[in-house]
């Protein structure tokens, strides 16, 4: 039997942790960009894009992330597409993130008072000019705290991708636990890893919230 030193365990977990971080970043950046498009469609004037955006949001908010990943991973292979685990994981989390961010941001756009729309209409600004110069800058300020808060959910959500075999932190942890017969130690370290990733984020979200309450 191979024997593992504590350093072996930690080293492998660090690699898994790095993949968790990378997956979170990819999901957040791509999901944020997609979410912005979904948001604009969802609150826009055109009927068909609005309905599509609404469906997108309801679908990804209304089903478990695990099943979304299964569907992508196994469903696409039915069509002869061989989807590697990393791709299914990245794609699944991106779509999941986009739906939630679009909905969070929609709340922020709607929290901008109607008078702001009216005042900018009076200046003969078009819808997109209003969005770009008046509404989104204010909505963005409102959205920072909940968006950072949601980033924590994304980091923790990456754990689910271990089920389809993506070797992020949780998957790495379970493989090492099986090999070392030290599940308590290993999973404690895994939990610590998530905590190290998430704590600064949630702390930051809280301080932002406090700061934005105080400032304009």
């Amino acid at each position, binding site marked *: 039997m191979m024997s593992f030193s504590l350093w072996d365990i930690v080293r492998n977990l660090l690699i898994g942790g790095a993949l968790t971080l990378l997956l979170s970043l990819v999901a957040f950046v791509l999901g944020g960009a997609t979410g912005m498009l979904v948001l604009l469609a969802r609150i826009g004037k055109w009927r068909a894009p609005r309905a599509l955006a609404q469906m997108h949001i309801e679908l990804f908010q209304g089903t478990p992330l695990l099943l979304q990943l299964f569907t992508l991973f196994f469903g696409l292979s039915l069509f002869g597409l061989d989807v590697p685990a990393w791709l299914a994981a990245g794609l699944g989390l991106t779509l999941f993130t986009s739906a939630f961010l679009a909905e969070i941001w929609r709340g922020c756009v709607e929290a901008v008072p109607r*008078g702001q729309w009216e005042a*900018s209409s*009076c*200046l*003969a600004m*078009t819808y997109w000019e209003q969005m770009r110069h*008046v509404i989104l800058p204010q909505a963005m300020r409102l959205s920072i705290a909940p968006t950072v808060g949601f980033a924590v959910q994304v980091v923790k959500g990456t754990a689910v991708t271990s089920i389809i075999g993506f070797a992020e932190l949780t998957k790495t942890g379970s493989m090492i636990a099986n090999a070392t017969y030290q599940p308590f130690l290993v999973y404690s370290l895994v939990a610590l890893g998530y905590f190290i990733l998430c704590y600064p984020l949630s702390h930051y979200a809280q301080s932002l919230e406090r700061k934005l309450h105080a400032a*304009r």
Partner: protein
Amino acid sequence: MPLVSTNRLHKFFGKNHVLRGIKLDVEEGEVVTIVGRSGSGKSTLLRTLNGLESIDDGIIEVDGAKLEVDCADAASLRALRLKVGMVFQQFNLFPHLSAGQNVMLAPQVVKGTAKSETEDIARRMLERVGLAEKFDAFPDQLSGGQQQRVAVARAIVNDPVIILGDEPTGNLDSRTAEEIMALFQDLNSAGKTVILVTHEQDIAEHCKRIIRFRDGHIISDEKVASPADARQILAKMPAGDEMVTHV
């Protein structure tokens, strides 16, 4: 030709028939006030004049820019809104922009004027309302009266022929209200036509013409022989700390 002219104007909110066939002509240089009970449709009428509310029947014409029921396209709406400035009870300044930027936004974005030039324009507008030194202040650093002045500066930046005010003094104490009325009267002397909605009789008395409104109808329309002069009233009031300036 009247500057503003509406005919057969009708507006429904669901089953609520809010404007019931309004015919209204306003000549260039008038200061008109619309008074009437709460819910009688004063704000709605004012807001149809720059297309903030759509209409269900009739026609609106402002200085040649026309709005009809079925042809309220973006281009005619824009043409109309460039001729009409509006000021609100709640000021509605853009809170993320400084006073100067509030004023600069329209010329920059809507007219595509170069930034250096819009800055000059904005400084001139703020000077006109007596707030030149507040160019860099944000709305939450300004008093209500100062915010309303910035709102007036913003409303006149596109050089409209008409200024609309929906209870522009409704949130201000009486001295500050008087100062804002002085500003409207100055603008009127400088050639702008003014249409205000108000609840307050003493504000209405500053206007050259008073239109009474009830249940979506105009029930009376009278010229005022000698409108109150805000500057004279201010001169008799105990001094406030805000400076009154000249247009």
